[in-house]
């Protein structure tokens, strides 16, 4: 666990900035990677988005005002990067429901996916959710993040987050009832 105030001081000091940022990369790379991977699904895409997340953070270090925790700030960048990546992919490759239909077979043939067909269907059900519900479901269900932390990170009220989570759970249950 890093000392937040010390690392912020080091990040503001030009002579220690790069070493401090390297500490941040070591500390948060895994947790950010898994957050991104659950949204973009493939390893190569997750790798690209994770790199972009850290580069964006590096370039925006001077703008970080320490009003939120560094982890919250990095998570926010990672989620925004993931969502804009998905949006671009949708526009560029005509990412439609047809390609989402292919997702199960794509996941099953992915060398970095260990799940069975039910797990692939679960990922597909999550991918079909609207963006906000997808993000909230992943954070709550897989990472067991508190609604308070999520609210700070996403800039959304706790009530709205709970509603998004409830809708997501309902849609996933419906999906499985229809596909069973």
């Amino acid at each position, binding site marked *: 666990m890093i000392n937040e105030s010390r690392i912020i001081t080091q990040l503001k000091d030009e002579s220690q900035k790069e070493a401090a940022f390297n500490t941040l990369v070591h500390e948060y790379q895994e947790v950010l990677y898994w957050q991104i991977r659950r949204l973009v699904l493939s390893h190569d895409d997750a*790798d690209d988005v994770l790199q972009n997340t850290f580069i964006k953070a*590096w*370039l925006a270090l001077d703008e970080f005002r320490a009003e939120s925790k560094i982890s919250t700030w990095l998570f926010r960048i990672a989620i925004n990067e993931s969502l804009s990546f998905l949006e671009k992919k949708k526009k560029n490759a005509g990412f439609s429901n047809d390609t989402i239909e292919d997702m199960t077979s794509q996941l099953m043939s992915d060398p970095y996916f260990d*799940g069975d067909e*039910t797990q*692939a269907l679960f990922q597909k059900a999550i991918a079909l959710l609207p963006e906000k519900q997808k993000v909230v479901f992943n954070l709550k269900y897989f990472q067991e993040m508190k609604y308070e932390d999520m609210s700070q990170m996403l800039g959304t009220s706790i009530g709205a987050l709970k509603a998004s989570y409830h809708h997501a759970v*309902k849609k*996933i249950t419906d999906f499985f009832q229809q596909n069973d």
Partner: protein
Amino acid sequence: MREFMIEEKFIEERLGNGNPFRVPEHYFDEFPQRIKKRIAQQKRRRLMIRWSIAAMMAGCIFGSALFLNNSRQQNASLEADNTQYIEDALDYSMINNMEIATYLTEAE
């Protein structure tokens, strides 16, 4: 609320919350080094942009200085031409400096 709890329980029991994804071997060991390289590239790019801007500004300043200097030289040469023209005109009109001085004094 009760319905929601049943649905959530269904997902947990049927699907669990394990992680079916994997990463290539040594991925997290090598990733920080790759970020370091990209940051070094970014730094070089920023430095090049700064140098280009500085070179462009220096070029603008040098160009402006050259232009101003040329304009001044042209003005000086025009002034010299005008003085010569008046002197020549006075010579041709056969009026000497004494006559001009007398004329100016009388005019006052």
